[in-house]
């Protein structure tokens, strides 16, 4: 087969919920450590010292593996003063009204851009022909709240100080409007579509009650969705866990596509059957499979199930249910990539013989 020519317009079809001509590959993220493991080249230290080198290496990996676009998110939480509660084990900097009033929210945009600009500019310089990024501002509204308070303390705050809980989400929403407005205005040329990741669910349910998510989180999400749409771009939501109870409201707020799935929660065709008439979908293959399987078993499974998903879906892009962390097996990952190439060849054969 000829060398794959990336074409971001191909993956973009999924966001329009149309069947792309060529089955696109999608990942939420591929850890730099995994790329190092797969290529045998060390480069992850260069992210701040030589971002052009870093992004050339990263993007080249995506390109070589026949993706049309790659992920980049400029992280919001990581620039929060006293960040880290989202990782657990410590309380966040905001525990009461006084902390909230004192917190330097106004300084965050400048901290954010100081960190993000060199990376975005580097990406702009090294973008290969036919490829663009997807992502934008990293971390979701709920994740920011968890980072500022801590998940468990946020759950308690919901009951013991509901006004503060409400004001916190509103404040985060305002911050997101500021950051996303500039992101969409100044960097739309390098993004094929925008994406926000906000894990709202766990294995059996949502992380907060559905009513609370609808009242406090989704209205903030919607502000971002609207900014993206007003900028003429499409919006993808990545959200892990069992979020079926809020999916109708998420679709209602205007997302164009959704990613993340786990086999222990639902088989992937359930996602397709439930939601693909309304939105595009990405993913399909649980991280467990890519970590425990070998080349052959993954290859066979992805050819079989991937062909099936592509057959029943409209807008669909294939990939893991989450991301490719360092611990995914390189062989299994290659099995998935080769399987997608095989599905593309099969599609070609069918089209040519129609």
């Amino acid at each position, binding site marked *: 087969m000829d060398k794959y020519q990336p074409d971001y317009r191909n993956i973009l079809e999924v966001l329009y919920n149309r069947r792309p001509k060529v089955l696109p590959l999608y990942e939420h993220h591929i850890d730099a450590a995994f790329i190092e493991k797969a290529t045998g080249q060390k480069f992850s230290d260069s992210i701040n010292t030589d971002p052009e080198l870093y992004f050339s290496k990263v993007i080249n990996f995506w390109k070589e593996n026949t993706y049309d676009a790659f992920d980049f998110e400029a992280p919001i939480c990581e620039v929060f003063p006293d960040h880290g509660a989202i990782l657990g*084990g410590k309380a966040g900097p905001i525990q009461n009204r006084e902390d909230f009033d004192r917190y330097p929210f106004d300084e965050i945009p400048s901290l954010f851009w100081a960190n993000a600009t060199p990376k975005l500019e580097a990406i702009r310089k090294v973008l290969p022909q036919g490829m663009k990024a997807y992502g934008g501002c990293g971390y979701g509204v709920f994740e920011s709240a968890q980072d500022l308070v801590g998940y468990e303390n946020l759950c308690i705050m919901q009951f013991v100080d509901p006004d503060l809980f409400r004001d916190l989400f509103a404040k985060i929403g305002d911050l997101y409007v500021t950051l996303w407005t500039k992101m969409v205005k100044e960097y739309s040329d390098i993004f094929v579509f925008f994406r926000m990741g906000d894990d709202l669910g*766990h294995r059996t349910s949502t992380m907060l009650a559905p009513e609370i998510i609808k009242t406090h989180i989704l209205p903030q999400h919607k502000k971002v969705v609207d900014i993206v749409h007003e900028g003429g771009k499409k919006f993808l939501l990545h959200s892990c866990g069992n979020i079926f109870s809020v999916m109708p409201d998420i679709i209602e707020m205007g997302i164009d596509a959704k990613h993340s799935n786990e086999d222990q929660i639902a088989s992937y065709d359930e996602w397709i059957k439930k939601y693909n008439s309304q939105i595009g979908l990405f993913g399909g293959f*649980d991280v*467990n499979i890519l*970590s425990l399987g070998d080349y052959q078993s993954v290859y066979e499974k992805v050819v079989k199930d991937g062909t099936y998903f592509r057959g029943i879906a409209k807008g669909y892009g294939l990939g893991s249910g989450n991301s490719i962390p360092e*611990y995914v097996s390189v062989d299994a990952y290659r099995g998935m990539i080769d399987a997608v190439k095989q599905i593309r060849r099969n599609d070609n054969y069918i089209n040519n013989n129609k």
Partner: protein
Amino acid sequence: MNLYELYDAILNGKLEKAVEVTNQAISQSIEPQIIINDYMVKAMEEIGARFEAGSAFVPNLLMSARAMKGSLEILKPLMNNSNVTPMGKVVVGTVKGDLHDIGKNLVCSMLEGCGFEVVNLGVDISSEKFIEAVKEHKANIVCMSALLTTTMTYMKEVIDAFENVGLRKDVKIMVGGAPLSEDFANEIHADGYSDNANSAVSLAKKLMAS
């Protein structure tokens, strides 16, 4: 006085109310054992059942556990000279390489709320640390949590390590976390698996009785 107010306070996650009613109960010399077993634990069981059924959420569990803890703290000093005995001693940790702690903490809260003595080791726990803790605390049960595929396979190493030091038959080992399944638990020869914090308690009780 009406001890059902205590049940309601814990079920609805009302710390102040729970403490108030507990104090009243103490002043009327009601046995801690009755207060705990007949009202407090029952409330935790009910909120746990609602969580399992999907009608209560993690925040509700955390609020109930907080109210339960508040009441238990007042009762603890009185418990030495009463005949309240813990259901069993449990060592809990998220395994090595894994930092996910929310589910593990919930399992701890539920076990504690339902009368177990719990030693929460934290996250990123190696087999050596699990073994050390079991020896130190003379635990009956080990609970391992893992949310990642790699760390879930580490659980097998921990079980093997217990075997190697000759402690395997002295402890029951329970496993849980999002990517696990009953089949996986059987494969690694764990004694039990459950997919939520509520059934973790019934499982622990069953294992104590076996």
